[in-house]
């Protein structure tokens, strides 16, 4: 196992490098460059201005040299400099990371626990009213556009009821510290995290339910019943455990995106996270930032894929992995 993990980590390094090159070429293939965008925002610029910018950003160099320079930095974990934001990319990402991690992390835990729970509940009473209600809700959640839900949530809980702040990360200028600050952030977190979580909740719920129904008809469940094990325990220990594999896969996928942030949610709720940073960077062709975010989130995806694989082996001892 240890060898497997080490092997994978080494390979991950190479993939990351390959992905980096691919990403680099990909985003340079998109029309426009940061100089043009920056000049564009000023509403006027002459060629000299553009040329100056390009020289400053190093965009006047041939592409392969730019790539080489970037890679040299990247392997030393130097993610470059954002000219647009006038900050080292690493610093920029580090700045935004806590907010994103908080949001996606909470949404992840929330959706996973809620989704699995609802899925278990629904499958336990297949065909009953409870099942119908849960299934319908789940359907509603994932068939409704995220931004619609987000906006409605902000409308109801923020504008109409005034219970929760509708945007932002904390109350600006309130100067809270310690617990008051934590509480403040938590309040701000409620809407975006639930909105983001709802969709995944629905997915986990459906997946869990389908998988549980499948497993609940296997013979060993009968054995467990014959032992006099309580229904609840059977559900959890025997059925759920055996039904978990696809859920784990999805959870691994979601977890991999944890650093990639949530573009739409972060935008709608003005959450100062990576997703927004990335989206803005794409629009502004802030190459170093895009690549930096892709790099970090790519590394996370690889890591979580590895963790998922390890989980497979833990969950299902029959699975053997070599690599």
């Amino acid at each position, binding site marked *: 196992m240890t060898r497997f993990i080490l092997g994978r980590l080494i390979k991950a390094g190479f993939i990351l490098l390959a992905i980096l090159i691919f990403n680099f070429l990909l985003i340079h293939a998109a029309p426009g460059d940061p100089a043009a965008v920056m000049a564009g925002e000023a509403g006027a610029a002459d060629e000299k201005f553009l040329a100056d910018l390009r020289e400053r950003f190093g965009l006047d160099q041939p592409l392969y040299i730019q790539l080489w320079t970037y890679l040299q930095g990247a392997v030393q974990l130097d993610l470059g400099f954002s000219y647009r934001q006038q900050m080292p990319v690493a610093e920029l990402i580090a700045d935004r990371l806590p907010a994103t991690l908080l949001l996606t992390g909470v949404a992840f835990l929330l959706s996973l626990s809620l989704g699995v729970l609802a899925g278990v509940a629904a499958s336990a009473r297949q065909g009953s009213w409870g099942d119908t209600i849960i299934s319908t809700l789940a359907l509603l959640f994932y068939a409704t556009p995220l931004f619609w839900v987000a906006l409605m949530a902000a*409308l109801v809980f923020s504008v109409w009821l005034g219970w929760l702040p509708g945007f932002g990360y904390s109350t600006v200028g309130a100067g809270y510290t310690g617990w008051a600050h934590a509480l403040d952030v938590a309040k701000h977190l409620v809407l975006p995290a639930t909105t983001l979580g709802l969709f995944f909740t629905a997915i986990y719920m459906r997946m869990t339910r389908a998988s549980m129904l499948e497993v609940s008809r296997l013979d060993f469940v009968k054995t467990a019943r014959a032992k006099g094990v309580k229904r609840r325990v059977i559900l959890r220990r025997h059925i759920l455990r055996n039904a978990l594999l696809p859920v784990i*896969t999805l959870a691994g996928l979601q977890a991999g995106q944890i650093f990639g942030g949530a573009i739409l949610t972060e935008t709608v709720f003005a959450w100062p996270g990576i997703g927004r940073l990335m989206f803005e960077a794409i629009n502004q062709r802030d190459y170093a930032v895009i690549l930096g975010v*892709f790099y970090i989130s790519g590394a996370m995806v690889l890591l979580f894929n590895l963790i998922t694989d390890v989980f497979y082996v833990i969950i299902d001892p029959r699975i053997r992995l*070599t690599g």
Partner: protein
Amino acid sequence: MKDFWTRFRFNRGAVIGLVILAVVIATAIAAPFIFPTSPWKMVQRPFLPPLTQNGLPLGTDALGRDVLAGLAHGAYVSLLVGLVSTVVALAIGVPVGALAGYFVGRVDDALMRFTEFFQTIPSFALAIVLLAIFQPSLTFVIIAIAIVSWPPVARLVRGEVLSLRTREFVEAATLQGLGNAQIILRHILPNALPPIIVLASLMVAQAILLESSLSFLGLGDPNIMSWGYMIGAARTVIRTAWWLSFLPGMAILLTVLALNLIGEGLNDALNPRLTRKSE
């Protein structure tokens, strides 16, 4: 096959789903005949609420266009986006996942690293970049959506196959001299079906919504009426003209519902243990 139909038919939900889907498909096909004028035509004053004007039962949008005509014409694109991109994603994801899970070792390694290649870029961002590079025509929107949606399929299928390949009935099939392809297709995949069906029905919804998010960001094909476009466009007026996002939202919801019911019916009909009630 006949048997399968009988079983499918007995599932009331599945039949309802099929009916809804049939209606949607029929609408998509018939739209140009029922509403021969372009859905983009501005026919009345903007923001006419539903049921207030004869001939415009669902009212008008921000530019005074007929919402009903839009819904009818939009059905085609949304279905196309949803179904085609899902089919493409399945067509890539299932084989990749199945081969990786079945052969483990080097094949798995190669295929999964390949998948990771696509997986590492946050999917929405990848779609945006792809659409920034290529002109967002309908084809490219579909391709972009398919490209970002297959890796989850591949990983899911792989996980299932990894677990199934060690079962004794697979060993038995090997001894029977079945080729790898047959074992995968006839023994492993059918047993991995429930999560795949769930994921597929989710993906259709996701594709339709992704298209809407993309057109909301100005990256859809603005020359084609779709439900996603309608929702995206109605977003800014959600407060003043709720029906503009509600109606296409309902259309998507119904379609997704239908696909889910069908999926569930399919799942049940294909599961031998669920059939043959003793009544």
